[in-house]
């Protein structure tokens, strides 16, 4: 009797370990920040994934089965992201992972996925150290901090070539990485760095930091910030009457959909430049359709974070189909060899795990993001210098 009970339980629990079998779906693991300070971006991820998912399933899914996304919320915390790897890979046995949102959380999971020999596709982490490990299991869809810095410098050179720059960055992996990339790029371009200031997010007061920047009197400021702080930074830049000719930024908070609206920095966002990886107006086929579908579903226009999530899932699905298998190693090899020539995010192909993706420069003009660089895809002329605060 007792033995039977144990046997039944044993078999039942074994069954629960076998994923997806007989359920007719293939699970793909997603780690992102659905809650916490970066939830705005996690939401964008989720929306982008949802659109890609429906598109893939409408075309028959992968290997003849529908795809199902297995989400893990890292609560915007790196340690939770690592927990996510163990939950999704060890317990749910997903063959491939997408995520996370932030550079901080993504950096934290590189070791865990490499150790478990599960391929990871990174949609949005721009810090270049996420690629430092040279792990053969890691692939990045987005451009990184070095690309951001180079694009910003190229833009500045072509538009007045300012001489003095200040960097204001959030003291996280994302901020530090972009600060380092810009420090190197500026040196190479012969731009003098007159101030390099870090700050801790969640503080209500950045005025002392901005006072230090004002003292240094830069022509350009390069901000590396998430949304929570980008709004406060711009408001307080106005308050301390700090007037550089250019407000440039490493995207992220300065490229979030809410940033130029009343929910974000509002009018204070005007004339700020940002790097961008994609906009609804991008030249790649399918961009407009993605924008339209996104607007229909979520009643707002997508920023590049949603598109990168979309692209990451497209890559995963294509790789599984190419691999004709759910074995992580085979999927990994398929991702290595993938060559998607037409996606709304442009062509996708990995070299040493990195997708070569061009970076655009946008400027907020009358509350709208406009592409201003490179010239061949520009929608508007950049307004330089930004008007001083007292004249706005």
């Amino acid at each position, binding site marked *: 009797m007792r033995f039977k009970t144990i046997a039944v339980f044993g078999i039942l629990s074994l069954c629960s370990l076998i994923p997806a079998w007989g359920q007719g779906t293939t699970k793909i693991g997603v780690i992102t920040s659905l809650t916490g300070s970066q939830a705005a971006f996690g939401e964008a991820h989720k929306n982008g994934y949802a659109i890609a998912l429906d598109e893939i399933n409408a075309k028959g899914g992968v290997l003849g089965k529908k795809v199902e996304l297995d989400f893990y919320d890292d609560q915007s915390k790196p340690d939770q992201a690592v927990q996510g790897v163990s939950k999704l890979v060890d317990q749910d046995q997903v063959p491939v992972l997408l995520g996370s949102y932030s550079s901080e959380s993504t950096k934290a999971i590189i070791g865990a996925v490499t150790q478990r020999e599960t391929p990871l596709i990174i949609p949005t982490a721009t810090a270049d150290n996420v690629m430092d490990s040279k792990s053969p299991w890691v692939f990045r869809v987005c451009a990184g901090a070095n690309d951001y810095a180079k694009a910003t410098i190229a833009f500045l050179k072509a538009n007045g070539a300012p001489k003095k720059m200040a960097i204001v960055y959030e003291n996280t992996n994302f901020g530090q990485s972009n600060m380092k990339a810009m420090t190197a790029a500026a040196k190479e371009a012969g731009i003098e760095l007159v101030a390099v200031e870090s700050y*801790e997010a969640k503080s209500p*007061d950045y005025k002392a930091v901005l006072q230090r920047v004002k003292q240094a009197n830069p022509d350009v400021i390069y901000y590396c910030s998430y949304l929570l702080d980008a709004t*406060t930074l711009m408001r307080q830049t106005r*308050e301390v009457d700090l007037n550089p000719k250019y407000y440039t930024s490493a995207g992220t908070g300065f490229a979030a959909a809410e940033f130029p609206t009343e929910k974000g920095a509002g009018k204070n966002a005007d004339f700020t430049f940002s790097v961008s990886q994609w906009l609804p107006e991008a030249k790649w086929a399918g961009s407009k359709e993605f924008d339209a579908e996104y607007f229909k579903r979520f009643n707002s226009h997508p920023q590049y974070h949603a598109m990168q999530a979309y692209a990451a899932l497209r890559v995963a699905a294509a790789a599984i189909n190419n691999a004709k298998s759910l074995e992580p190693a085979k999927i990994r090899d398929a991702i290595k060899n993938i060559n998607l020539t037409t996606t709304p995010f442009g062509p996708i192909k990995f070299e040493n795990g990195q997708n070569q993706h061009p970076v655009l420069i946008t400027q907020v003009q009358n509350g709208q993001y406009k592409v201003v660089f490179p010239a061949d895809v520009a929608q508007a002329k950049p307004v330089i210098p930004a008007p001083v605060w007292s004249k706005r």
Partner: protein
Amino acid sequence: MVRFLQACADGLLTGALYALIGMGLALIFGVMRIVNFAHGAFLMVGMYATYVLFDSFKLNPYIGFLPAGVVLFIFGYLVYLLLIRPVRNRSHFMQILMTTGIGLILTDGAQLIFKADYRQTNIDLINRSVHIGPFGANAAEVLSFAIGIVFVVGLYFFVSRSLTGQALRAISQSPDVAPLMGINLTRIQGFSFALGTALAGVAGGLLLPRLYLFPGVGEDYTTKAFVMVVLGGMGSIEGAALGGLVLGLSESLTSLYIGNQWALIVDFVLFLLVLSFKPSGMFGRQRA
């Protein structure tokens, strides 16, 4: 020199709100000897209460913080009756577990109800500034400061002059003897817990226009409140207020002269120094 004075002014503007937060915690600690790890969560609830009034009834946060404070007062009283009173004579460990648990439930509850989206009240005032000579300040911050100071001074006089205030101090001096003198322990403890909670709520309401709101927003303030209370001498209400101002100043000056990333470090170094060398507090006062 202008930069120094400006940074001092900015520090005091933030410091007045810190003072409110610190006084709330000191009140609870002084009267009940309970270390309230849910204090930051109460602040967060106050922010959400103010936010809901703003969002649903278009009530300006500078009016909305008052009803939010009242709501928090009632809420604090209920928390005391239902959760804190049963553990008031138990070990400190039990009390810490209880308040930490309350904090976690509140934070996750807010996440459940409001999602983790950041929110803000973009009131007109936040985009205006006040200029006096070479100095400038955000109008909303100045208003928060002024209201904060009124509460700080009001609370000080309440505790030192009123009959209830005397009862509060009597209990904090001798929780065993005070009831023998005809002071109703449960009533006074419940009142002070509710008042401490309401102060956190008011501070939250006043902080809302100048900060973002999300469920985890209070976490940092719990730790900062401990620093203030220790700076001011544990349980001393006016000491905690001064501790709040000192903390605001030190953060602002550290940011200006050393760098913002050092601000929290300096906070905690101050905390450790005071704990090690002057445990009665920076100002050397006895508890209230």
